[in-house]
C-alpha cells in the first residue's frame, strides 16, 4: 500500500486550490472528475500531479454536466469521488446534484465562487450561495460548508467526505476565488493524527454475488409514477435531512451575548467581520458577529436567539442579499430590524464594516 500522503502534520504556505487537492488526498479520496474553469483549475493541476503517486485517479470530462454525473457514478460504485467548479460550471452541475439529492449519492463538490451572473469575473464573489444551497428542481437537501480560510478549506474538505458518506446527502465546500488563488499558511495533517476516522464507503452498484439469487438486484431510480409515490419519497428525504440537521449545523459567535449590532457574514467575509468587531469593541461600540459555517442546514435556533436580544442585524456579503434571504427566512417572526451591505462580486474590508456600523449607530 502506498504511504500516507501526509505523514503527521506539516506547516505549509500554499494556495487554496492546492490545499483542496491535499485535503482530498488526506481524506483518502479515490477519484476526481473535473472540467477546467477558473478559479478552481489548480485543484485539478495539483490533483493530477499528486494523485498517481498514491494510486488515485483522475478523469477530465467533456463538460461539467459530465463531471457531475461521473462523480455520481463513481460514488454509487462505492468510491470517494469529488469534483470542483465555479460559476457557469456550478450551473451545469446542478442537474447531477439534483439527482444526488434524490438518490442520496454522497458526492463532494468544491465550489470556488466567481463573479456572476453569466460569465461575470473569474475572480471572486459570494454569488453562488443560492445556487449551491438550493439549486436544482428540488428542496435543497444538501450539506454546504462555507469556509473562510485555508485552514478551514483543508479541515472542511476532509469533513465534507465524511459528512457525505455518513449522511448520504450531496456535500459542498463553498469557497471563493480569493481563497482559491491566495497563498496562506496552514497546517496540513493526517486526519488519523487528529482522531478523525474516515467514514467507510460502500457501493450501491456492482455489489458482490449473483443478483436475484444470492441477493436482490440493486435497482436505483429517481423516477416515480404518481404524485403520492413521489410525495412519499420526498417526505422521506426531508425527514432524513431534518433528522441529521442538528448534528450537521455549525456556526460561530463573536461577542454576540451583549451586542447591540450583530454582523452576519459567511465565508471569507467573516474575517473582515471578526476584525471589525474587534476594532468596534476597542472603541466601546457593542458590536458582535454571527458566522454560519453551514449554510445548509442553517443554524436557525442560534440565530433566532440572537435576533431576540440584538437591536439590529447587519448582513454583509459579496452578493446582492443571497445570505440575507436565508437569514430572513431563519428569523421569520422576530421584529429586530435587518440591514444589508451587499457588494456583489467585490471584497469587503473590516474598515468598511466599522464605518458602516458607526454610521448606523
Amino acid at each position, binding site marked *: 500500500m502506498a504511504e500516507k500522503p501526509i505523514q503527521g502534520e506539516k506547516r505549509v504556505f500554499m494556495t487554496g486550490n492546492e490545499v483542496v487537492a491535499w485535503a482530498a488526498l488526506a481524506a483518502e479520496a*479515490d*477519484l476526481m*472528475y473535473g472540467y477546467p474553469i477558473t478559479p478552481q483549475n489548480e485543484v485539478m493541476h495539483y490533483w493530477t500531479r499528486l494523485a498517481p503517486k498514491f494510486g488515485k*485517479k483522475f*478523469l477530465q*470530462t*467533456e*463538460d461539467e*454536466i*459530465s463531471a457531475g*454525473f*461521473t*462523480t*455520481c*457514478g*463513481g*460514488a*454509487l*460504485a*462505492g*468510491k470517494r*469521488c469529488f469534483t470542483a467548479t465555479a460559476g457557469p460550471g456550478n450551473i451545469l452541475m446542478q*442537474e*447531477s446534484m439534483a*439527482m444526488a439529492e434524490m438518490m442520496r449519492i454522497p458526492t463532494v463538490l468544491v465550489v470556488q465562487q466567481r463573479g456572476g451572473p453569466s460569465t461575470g469575473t473569474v475572480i471572486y464573489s459570494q454569488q453562488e450561495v443560492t445556487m449551491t444551497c438550493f439549486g436544482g428542481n428540488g428542496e435543497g437537501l444538501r450539506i454546504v460548508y462555507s469556509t473562510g480560510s485555508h485552514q478551514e478549506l483543508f479541515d472542511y474538505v476532509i469533513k465534507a467526505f465524511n459528512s457525505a458518506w455518513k449522511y448520504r446527502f450531496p456535500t459542498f465546500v463553498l469557497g471563493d476565488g480569493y481563497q482559491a488563488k491566495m497563498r496562506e499558511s496552514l497546517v496540513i495533517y493526517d486526519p488519523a493524527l487528529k482522531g478523525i476516522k474516515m467514514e467507510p464507503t460502500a*457501493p*450501491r*452498484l*456492482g*455489489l458482490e*454475488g*449473483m*443478483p*436475484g*439469487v444470492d441477493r436482490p*438486484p*440493486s*435497482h*436505483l*431510480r*429517481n*423516477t416515480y409514477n404518481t404524485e403520492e409515490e413521489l410525495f412519499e419519497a420526498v417526505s422521506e428525504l426531508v425527514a432524513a435531512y431534518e433528522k441529521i440537521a442538528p448534528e450537521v449545523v455549525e456556526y460561530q459567535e463573536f461577542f454576540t451575548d451583549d451586542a447591540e449590532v450583530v454582523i452576519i457574514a459567511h465565508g471569507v467575509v467573516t474575517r473582515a467581520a471578526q476584525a471589525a468587531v474587534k476594532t468596534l469593541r476597542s472603541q466601546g461600540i457593542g458590536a458582535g458577529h454571527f458566522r454560519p459555517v453551514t449554510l445548509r442546514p442553517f443554524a436557525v435556533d442560534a440565530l433566532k436567539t440572537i435576533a431576540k436580544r440584538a437591536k439590529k442585524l447587519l448582513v454583509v456579503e459579496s452578493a446582492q442579499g443571497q445570505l440575507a434571504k436565508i437569514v430572513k427566512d431563519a428569523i421569520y417572526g422576530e421584529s429586530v430590524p435587518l440591514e444589508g451591505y451587499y457588494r456583489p462580486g467585490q471584497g469587503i474590508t473590516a474598515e468598511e464594516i466599522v464605518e458602516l456600523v458607526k454610521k448606523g449607530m
Partner: protein
Amino acid sequence: MTKVPNMPKSWRQETKPHKFCPGCGHGLVLKALGEAIDELGIQDRVVFGCDIGCSLLAWDFFNVDTVQTHHGRTTPVLTGVKRARPDRICIAYMGDGGGYAIGSQHLVNAAARNEKLTVILVNNCNYGMTGGQMAPTTLPDMKTETSPYGRNVAETGYPTQGPEMVAAITREGAYAARGTVANVRQLKGFIKKALQNQIDGNGFSFVEALSGCPTNWSTNAKDTWAFIEETMTKYFKVGEIKAPAKKEE
C-alpha cells in the same frame, strides 16, 4: 402450476410483463441483451444504466444492478462507475434523443476517449415517452408531433447516423454496429461482440438497434414491421460498421 414463459435468465421475472407499450421494440432489444448477458455469463458483473425516455422503464427489468439516470446522462454515470470499478461490465442503455441529441457530447467524448463501456441505443425515429416529437433520427419527410408536415431537411438537417459517427471518431479497438429488432439473432450477436469488446478491454463499443414505436407512429403491426424493415433500413444500414481487427494467429 402457472406456466412461466421462457425468458432470459438475467431477466427479473417478478417485473414481467414489462412496462413498455404493446408492440414496442424495447422488449426485443432487452431480450437480445438478456440472452447476450446469459451466454457470456456476466450477470453478476453487469452494471446496467438507463436514461430518461422510454428506456427508463427498464430500471427494474434485469436481475442486475441498475441505475436510472437523467436524459442523456447515462453515458457519464456509467463512465463514472466504470472508472471507479474497472472490473464491472457497464452498459448504458438509451434512446436516440438521449444519445444523439441531449447526450451527444457525452457519446462523442466517451467514444473519443475510448471508454471501456458499452452503449446500446434504441433508434425508433422519434421521442416516444414525450409523445412522438421529432428526433435526430426522424427520417426525411416523416411526420411527427413537432414536424407535422414532415421533417424538412432544409431546416432540420438529415437523420443522425450514430454507428457511422462512432466509427469515424474512434480508433482501433472500438466496436460499432447497427442491428434491428427485425433480426434479434443478429442483434444479439452484435451486442455480444460489443460486450466481449468491453470484457477484453479493447475499447468503446456501440450498438444501435432499429426499433418500432407503433404508439407514436400510429401504425398497426403490419405497418410497424414494414417501416422497420423497409423504410428505416433504406437510410440506416444494418451491419457491423467497425470491429477490432482479428489478432494474428
